[in-house]
């Protein structure tokens, strides 16, 4: 006897019920319509069009990129055209001029004329600039600056072109670099000079192995132009001859440029950062400026020294300014003042970009005995950096100058009161309180002096002016 499975019976009854229900609720017709109403090909008909549109868009983008991308540089040498696509073959290739000069023309308009017995290589090309290596000899370059940065390599040096026309020479045997600027500006990078800007009209010779640097100034301008310009240098001039207001920075720079253009001066600089032999080169007809160090010995000679300050280009002034700050930080104010005298006090003050530097310049002037210069520098500091702590220190220094040099006790009292009222952190407050007491005594204001003496003794019983305050209170 077979054994019946109850689950099979149950399943059959469920299936029968489902079949009967499907006869009434079948969705075959609806699904058939849905299924067959959508042509199969139509579902796939869109992708070729999408592909075609995408391809067309890519072509358009490629054409736009090709049209708008900057033209890549190429160059010709004596009629020989070298296209960008051949850059692997042309980059690093030696371009030599044996007996006659050769002209290298770049597609952006740059011209490089290679002197005889010279060798040049183009080591890099981009859309807007190139890098050239001068193995030996001399080249004259007229660079078209279209936004790129041209570089010329010569020995250990790199000339970054910021301007347009110059001449560059490199002697690999003697290891001497010559650079003469005709127009614009370049930055020379390498040993001895580190980073040095050379401007139009200046020439430079560097011996990297000997650490020597020789700078030639720009050529003098016609005397007519000089005569039309007023001589307005008022550095450390007497108060009566000074203008009412401090000359602006732009004015100082303009005057400095005027002086530079007026008096051609040979400029000889040793190694700017380390001590190095100094080699002088005197151009014919140039006059040597008076030595400034001797003028610094007496305060009375300071205006004369300032008026005859050597006229220097901005290039060596930066180097000298570095030496000035080095001496000043080391406390060697005499030598710092010598450097400042060579550079020019207005130039130093105009170049001081922060209050600390300007205070240092003023301190050097004060400690070297140039009271008028120091006063002007301190006033400039108070004016430019009024909210800095260095401005308060300058006010105190002005009080000291008024008290010690000018004997103007009223002005000194005002400066000390102003200094003590300053919200900045006061480094000389004890000294200022004592000097205020002293000025009150000298002004004959006995009542105010006694009050200041009591105040001083309360706060600083062991201060340097304590004995003076006690004597005042005791009526001695």
């Amino acid at each position: 006897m077979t054994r019946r499975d109850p689950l099979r019976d149950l399943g059959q009854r469920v299936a029968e019920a489902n079949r009967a229900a499907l006869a009434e609720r079948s969705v075959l017709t609806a699904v058939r319509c849905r299924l067959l109403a959508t042509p199969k090909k139509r579902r796939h008909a869109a992708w070729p069009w999408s592909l075609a549109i995408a391809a067309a868009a890519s072509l358009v983008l490629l054409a736009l990129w090709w049209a708008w991308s900057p033209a890549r540089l190429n160059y010709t040498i004596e009629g020989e055209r070298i296209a960008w696509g051949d850059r692997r073959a042309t980059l690093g290739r030696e371009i030599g001029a044996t007996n006659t000069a050769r002209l290298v023309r770049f597609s952006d308009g740059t011209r490089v004329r290679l002197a005889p017995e010279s060798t040049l290589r183009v080591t890099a090309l981009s859309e807007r600039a190139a890098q050239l290596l001068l193995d030996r000899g001399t080249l004259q370059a007229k660079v078209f600056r279209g936004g790129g940065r041209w570089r010329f390599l010569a020995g250990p040096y790199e000339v970054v072109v910021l301007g347009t026309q110059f001449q560059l020479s490199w002697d690999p045997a003697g290891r001497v670099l010559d650079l003469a600027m005709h127009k614009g500006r370049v930055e020379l990078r390498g040993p001895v000079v580190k980073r040095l800007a050379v401007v139009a009209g200046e020439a430079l010779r560097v011996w990297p192995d000997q650490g020597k640097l020789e700078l030639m100034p720009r050529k003098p301008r016609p005397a007519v132009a000089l005569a039309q310009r007023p001589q307005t240098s008022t550095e450390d001039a007497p108060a009566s001859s000074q203008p009412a207001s401090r000359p602006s920075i732009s004015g100082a720079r303009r005057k400095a440029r005027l002086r530079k253009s007026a008096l051609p001066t040979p400029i000889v600089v040793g190694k700017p950062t380390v001590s190095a032999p100094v080699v002088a080169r005197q151009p014919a007809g140039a006059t040597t400026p008076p030595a400034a160090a001797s003028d610094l010995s007496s305060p009375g000679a300071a205006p004369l020294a300032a008026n005859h300050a050597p006229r220097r280009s901005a290039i060596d002034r930066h180097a000298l300014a570095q030496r000035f700050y080095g001496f000043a930080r080391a406390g060697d104010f005499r030598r710092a003042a010598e450097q400042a005298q060579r550079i020019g006090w207005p130039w130093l003050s105009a170049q001081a970009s922060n209050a600390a530097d300007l205070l240092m310049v003023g301190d050097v002037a004060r400690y070297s005995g140039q009271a008028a210069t120091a006063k002007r520098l301190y006033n400039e500091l108070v004016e430019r950096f009024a909210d800095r702590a260095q401005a308060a220190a300058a006010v105190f220094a002005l009080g000291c100058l008024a008290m010690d040099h000018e004997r103007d006790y009223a002005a000194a009292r005002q400066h000390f009161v102003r200094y003590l009222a300053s919200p900045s952190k006061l480094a000389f407050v004890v000294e200022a309180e004592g000097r205020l007491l002293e000025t009150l005594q000298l002004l004959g204001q006995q009542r105010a002096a006694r009050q200041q003496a009591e105040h001083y003794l309360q706060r600083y019983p062991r201060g340097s002016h304590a004995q003076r305050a006690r004597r005042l209170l005791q009526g001695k």
Partner: protein
Amino acid sequence: MKSMVMPVRTPDPSQTRASGVHALGFTGDDSALARALRRGHPGAPAALFDRYGRHVEGVLINLLGFDGEHEDLLHEIFAQALTCINKLQDDERLKAWLTSIAVHTARSCLRRRQRFRLFLRRAAQQDLPVSVADAETRRAVGRVYRLLERMPTELRLAFALRFIQGMELTEVAAACDVSLATIKRRLAKARRRFMLAARGDSALASWVVPDQEGQR
């Protein structure tokens, strides 16, 4: 065994006009139909649906019961079959292949329901029409699918194919794409679970009591 050649049913002209499809006649066995589908014969999809639509619909209903989704699922099964016809390896097993697609589609549907059961409202199980069965049968059918819903998907599919659809073990294994041993193990497990639950159910208790004569 060579599959039996089935005549192509002529579609209703009104349906054809409504759907905009001009059916072209197609005759041939499953192999010829599969080849025609691959070649893109314009009448082949209709022939496939007309030939196996009812079978697939039955499988689907037996697996899932009546709910609001079976129309979409049926459409999905045939759409997938038409798209993947090139994956059919044995043209003579077209029916089994469609059955396996139906099982896969039902499995996906059940898993989707389980995955989103916290976020989606469960598809309401529809009662059978009054005209097709008595109240006791309708109630028993409803309880069967209610118990199946509590089973894991694979056990449920195996149970439904074996006991409701009435397929052989080998057919069930092929439809579920597992080995025969695996399907036997699943069926045993599903049977135990279902019997345990059905004996405690008032509507099904009398259905699953073994026949006393048969036992003797």
